[in-house]
């Protein structure tokens, strides 16, 4: 189990490095950082001066290496727009996004797992058909449109919830729903398939033959085994939520990392964008690593070997 964790960690670092390499090249090659930094009104001489000063005329590999060295010690450069440390910016905004993502995945799981279990217990029943129907609908619904509809409905017409900002917990309700609903269908279907499979196994038959009560058979014996692949899926979906958070946070003006991403992209703030890409990918990598480890721990055949 330790060697497994070690191997996965090394792989994770390699992946993170590769991602940052690719994004660095994409950003710094396709645009002119000197112009981005100087702003649109700068003169040619100013731009040239900046180029020399910041070494933008050096080969891209050298530039990347410099960036990497600084990044390793936590220095992600300075934002062109906000004029503060990128790492500060991100550290400031990330908690909001994390909170949102956590609420969203809990919402998705809380919605999807019970529906999946209920569908598996009674396949082809009404609840099964309703769940499948909802999941098909959910996957076709564009999130930004859903967000607008919710705003019109709950903020404007019913006046129950606030539209924008991130001051109170009520501000998080609609964003949570919008971010979470997209992950629910996949989780529901995986839970359903997994439970169906597990419920027809021999060891569930043994559990019933032992006279264990139905809730015990269902939740202790069946779900425990069926949930294993769902953990990985949930982690992956949680990772994807960072991408989704860009749209959601921008619509609801939630001051998280996603909103920051949109702000910095529209302002050509390269260091921030690069820093955010690094942060997002690291987050995803760590998340899947944890999910794999939880997986390995949940299954005694892997844990003990």
């Amino acid at each position, binding site marked *: 189990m330790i060697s497994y964790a070690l191997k996965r960690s090394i792989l994770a670092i390699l992946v993170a490095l590769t991602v940052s390499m690719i994004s660095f090249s994409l950003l710094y090659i396709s645009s002119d950082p000197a112009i981005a930094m100087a702003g649109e009104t700068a003169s040619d001489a100013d731009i040239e001066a900046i180029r020399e000063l910041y070494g933008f005329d050096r080969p891209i590999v050298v530039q990347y290496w410099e960036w990497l060295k600084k990044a390793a010690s936590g220095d992600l450069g300075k934002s062109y727009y906000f004029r503060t440390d990128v790492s500060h910016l991100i550290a400031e905004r990330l908690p909001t996004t994390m909170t949102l993502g956590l609420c969203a995945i809990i919402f998705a799981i809380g919605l999807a797992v019970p529906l999946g279990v209920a569908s598996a217990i009674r396949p082809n029943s009404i609840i099964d058909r309703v769940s499948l129907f909802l999941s098909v609908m959910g996957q076709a619904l564009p999130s930004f449109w859903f967000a607008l509809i919710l705003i019109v409905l709950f903020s404007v017409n019913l006046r129950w919830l606030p539209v924008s900002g991130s001051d109170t917990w009520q501000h998080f309700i609609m964003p949570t729903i919008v971010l979470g609903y997209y992950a629910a269908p996949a989780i529901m279907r995986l839970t359903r398939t997994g439970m169906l499979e597990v419920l027809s*196994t*021999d*060891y569930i*038959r*043994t*559990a*019933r*033959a*032992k*006279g*264990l*009560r*139905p809730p*015990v058979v269902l939740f*202790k*014996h069946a779900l*425990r*085994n069926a949930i294993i692949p769902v953990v990985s899926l949930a982690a992956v979906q949680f990772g994807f939520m960072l991408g989704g958070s860009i749209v959601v946070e921008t619509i609801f003006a939630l001051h998280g990392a996603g909103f920051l991403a949109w702000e910095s992209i529209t302002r050509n703030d390269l260091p921030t964008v690069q820093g955010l890409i690094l942060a997002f990918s690291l987050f995803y990598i760590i998340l899947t690593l944890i999910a794999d480890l939880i997986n390995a721990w*949940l*299954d*005694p*055949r892997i844990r*003990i070997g």
Partner: protein
Amino acid sequence: MADQVLNVENLSIDIPLSGDILHAVDGISISVNKGETLCIVGESGCGKSLTSLAIMDLLPQKAVRTVDKLELNGSSILNYSDRQMSDVRGSKIGMIFQEPMTSLNPSFTVENQMVETLARHRNIRGKEAKKLAVQMLEKVGITPAKQRLKQYPHQLSGGLRQRVMIAMTLLCEPELIIADEPTTALDVTIQAQILELLTRLQADFNTGLILITHDLGVVAKSADRVAVMYAGQIVEEGSVYEIFDNPSHPYTRGLLSCIPVPGKIKRGEHLGSIPGMVPSLIGEFTECRFAGRWGDTLGKEEENIAHLTPIEGVDYAFLVHGTTDHVVRFCCNSCLKKSKSKISKGVN
């Protein structure tokens, strides 16, 4: 009967199948006494496993069970609700399945799976439960018991897992154990050990044991009474000595003739077999179930003809002449005629 543990009368199991009905089991009756081993023998697909599931009310949802009497220790469990049945399962009736490799939950330790039965039925938990579990593991021959408790099923061999299953079933000291081909999936050497274990434990606890198998060797070794099943019906039943010495139904004779006996069989001689195939049990029967399978069961000698006495009130059921409990059943008149059995009238 004071020490009758199980009494099943006229059990039928029907399974709807794409428009038609599969009559998997057709009007069988069995009974088991305390301390007695009943072996149900038959080919795959004759309905033996379904019978055991029917007794436990664990049939798949689609299957329909019809039975006149289902009594455990004299009291009827026929109309028990699911809740009441779950009280019976595991504590009054225990079941051991065929596949030890997949019958235990891979995510929980042996201890966890054993102790939960005690908590469920006898409200024993914690240290006391653990102690009982250790004792039972030792009784089934697993040592060191304490270490094995902490292990997961994938760390145990097939034979060990089956022993754990047996121990788990015995924890609540059930009055009846149903073992569905418990040794089929194990090595031959382990088979003998497990069988011996079962018989020893049965004597110790005085439980009734239904042993389902297709292996006549197992029957010869372990049975007190035998019920031979074919195509969803019990065609012959009696004590194990009667069945082996005096098989009176053509199917039973066919089964016995399939066993190659070294010394008796000559080189180059064909091995015995029953020709034909088990008929499909879907829909109603238009012809004899045993049609086309007679083969050589009648033999040439006169002594192979069975002497039968009809049983009052039951169609096609006969007592073998001179016994009180050796019963033979034919599925139809043509079967009866073809068997050339001698029917003598009169009460036995």
